[in-house]
């Protein structure tokens, strides 16, 4: 009996193990496959793509929004007359015959043919009624203002997994906020494939992207781009940039570079056009840097507007170098007000020497020079100032008139705006509010970063800059009846360790109205050929734009 008992027991154990093994096979090894099969009988999982957030200008107009487009796909197993289908598809969608033919030859149920086709093209294909050809609705970017502020906005391309991704500018910087979250939903259907329940949207996890509300003023941006384009052509420059800021809040009202690109067809442009030179390129600011150094010396009470320069009667020799003024004209006992008016390099050497290296570095850092400004755009760079122990006497002298230092236009505009804003330097920003998909708007408040100079110093410096506009080299183009504070700049371009006298960066920086500034602005022209001087190229552009902005804001001339 014992062996029979054991044999039965063994058979039972084996049977039991067989059942366990089979269960393991179904529950673990084939689990995923069975689950998919079950889901296919029950319903269809649909990927729910989020709508990318809009980008609106300060007047609420969407300068970037979404339009409906379609992905065309084929089920090669359902295509009946392949040669006719290939011919019609390639004609209607302007596709290569070989690529359509290759797609339809695949042994698959779903093959994408092309994406981004508009509603008209879809309607055309619909009318052809081709079996085995279907559409999937998707959203693509739409730019009602075409290439307006292209370098500020960036563009939307694809990432490694083929999903939309923002590159450069706001699209790049705020990509996570704009793109939202992809979700999935199950469309339950009956035996005939008819839906019997609504999509389970709430459980899908899909969230539309948030929209950005910019401080960018659309009419000002439009004006700036038009004037800049005309001026770059007129003055024969290789490129140009203009930035307009509200100095009291740090809000960017306009930012333009030319040449630029079209975000609708970014692939057709060189990658060099994608980056925003206003924040990604550094240059030697030249004389537009002088107001920063002068206001530092005024704030430290080392000079006053009436202080006389004791070294300005001729070229100044420092460390084996002979430093000249830009026009080789010298004014003995010139005052600090006149130093800025004449853009006198020797006068600025006098000021820089009074400041000394330590104070110079301290003030420049407070003005934000050598650091990124923190503007909410992708790709901002900065060139750090040299450490104090690496400064030679000639470095201090040239720094006084803006040579031997590199800044981005954004850095300089922010620093000059501090003078316009009673000495307070604001953090520049392009986005003033974010609206989430539920319509809740979160405002981004202005932020004071530093106070490089006192309000009194800022007022005095503004007056010196008003005098420079009214009596300086750019006085021929000034606006009658308005008090505008400004400074011209003509910086030579360093090439192989030397400055090329025929190639310059002409610029003008300033703000208006000087007593209660509504905007600050910087204009930069790269290698103008009609004239190399900022007073003859950048200054007229500044005043042309300023005239229109003042008129747009309804600010009348003071009549004085």
């Amino acid at each position, binding site marked *: 009996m014992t062996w029979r008992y054991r044999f039965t027991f063994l058979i039972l154990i084996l049977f039991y193990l067989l059942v366990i093994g089979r269960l393991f096979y179904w529950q673990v090894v084939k689990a995923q496959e069975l689950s998919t099969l079950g889901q296919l009988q029950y319903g269809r999982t649909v990927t729910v793509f989020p709508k990318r957030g809009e980008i609106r200008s300060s007047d609420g107009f969407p300068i970037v929004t979404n339009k409906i487009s379609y992905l065309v796909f084929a089920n090669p197993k359902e295509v009946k007359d392949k040669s006719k289908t290939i011919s019609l598809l390639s004609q209607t969608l302007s596709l290569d015959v070989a690529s359509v033919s290759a797609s339809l030859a695949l042994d698959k149920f779903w093959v994408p043919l092309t994406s981004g086709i508009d509603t008209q093209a879809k309607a055309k294909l619909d009318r052809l009624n081709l079996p085995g050809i279907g559409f999937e609705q998707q959203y693509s970017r739409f730019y*009602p203002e075409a290439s307006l502020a292209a370098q500020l906005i960036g563009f939307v391309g694809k990432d490694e997994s083929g999903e939309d991704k923002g590159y450069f500018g706001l699209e790049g910087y705020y990509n996570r906020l704009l793109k939202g979250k992809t979700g999935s939903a199950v469309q339950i259907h009956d035996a005939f494939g008819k839906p019997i329940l609504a999509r389970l949207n709430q459980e899908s996890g899909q969230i539309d992207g948030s929209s950005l509300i910019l401080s960018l003023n659309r009419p000002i941006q439009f004006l700036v781009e038009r004037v800049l384009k005309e001026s770059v052509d007129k003055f024969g420059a290789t490129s140009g940039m203009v930035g307009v800021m509200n100095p009291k809040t740090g809000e960017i009202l306009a930012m333009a570079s030319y040449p630029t690109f079209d975000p609708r067809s970014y692939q057709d442009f060189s990658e060099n056009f994608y980056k925003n030179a206003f924040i990604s390129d550094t240059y030697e600011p030249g004389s537009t840097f002088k107001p920063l150094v002068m206001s530092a010396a005024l704030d430290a009470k080392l000079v006053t507007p009436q202080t006389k320069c004791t070294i300005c009667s001729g070229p100044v020799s420092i460390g084996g170098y002979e430093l000249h003024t830009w026009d080789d004209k010298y004014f003995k006992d010139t005052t600090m007000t006149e130093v800025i008016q004449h853009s006198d390099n020797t006068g600025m050497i006098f000021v820089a020497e009074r400041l000394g290296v330590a104070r110079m570095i301290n003030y420049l850092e407070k003005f934000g020079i050598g650091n990124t400004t923190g503007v909410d755009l992708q790709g901002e760079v900065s060139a750090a100032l040299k450490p104090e122990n690496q400064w030679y006497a000639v470095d201090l002298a040239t720094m006084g008139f803006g040579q031997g230092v590199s800044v981005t236009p954004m850095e300089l505009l922010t620093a000059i705006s501090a003078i316009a804003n009673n000495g307070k330097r604001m953090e520049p920003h392009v986005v003033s509010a974010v609206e989430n998909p539920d319509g809740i708007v979160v405002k981004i408040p202005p932020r004071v970063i530093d106070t490089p100079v006192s309000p009194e110093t800022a007022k005095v410096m503004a007056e010196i800059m008003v005098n420079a506009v009214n009596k300086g080299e750019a006085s021929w183009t000034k606006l009658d009846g308005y008090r505008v504070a400004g400074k011209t700049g003509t910086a030579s371009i360093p090439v192989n360790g030397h400055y090329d006298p025929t190639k310059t960066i002409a610029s003008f920086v300033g703000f208006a109205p000087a007593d209660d500034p509504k905007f600050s602005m910087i204009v930069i022209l790269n290698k103008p050929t009609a004239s190399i001087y900022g007073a003859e190229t950048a200054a007229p552009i500044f005043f042309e734009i300023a005239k229109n902005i003042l008129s747009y804001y309804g600010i009348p*001339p003071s009549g004085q």
Partner: protein
Amino acid sequence: MKKPALLILFLIISVLGLSVVKTFVANRISTSGSTLGAIEERINFYKIENTLLSEKLYSLSSLTNVSSQADKLGFVEENSNFVLTNPIPIALKQ
């Protein structure tokens, strides 16, 4: 003995009643899939229509379009602003 019999009878009637109701309801909603599909299609149609109209509206009201239309209609930029200012309320020493 009487109470359990009543309870059983009640349960049987309930089961039968609910089965009838279920059959009736299932019969009523068996074709609603098509109706639901049609409603969803209609919603989708209006959503697309709305997006297309917005697209058209934005294109027409863009400054780029307004500016080019203004050029075509012959509008020109006014360069000489005329401004009325109040006279200065003090006597100036000339």
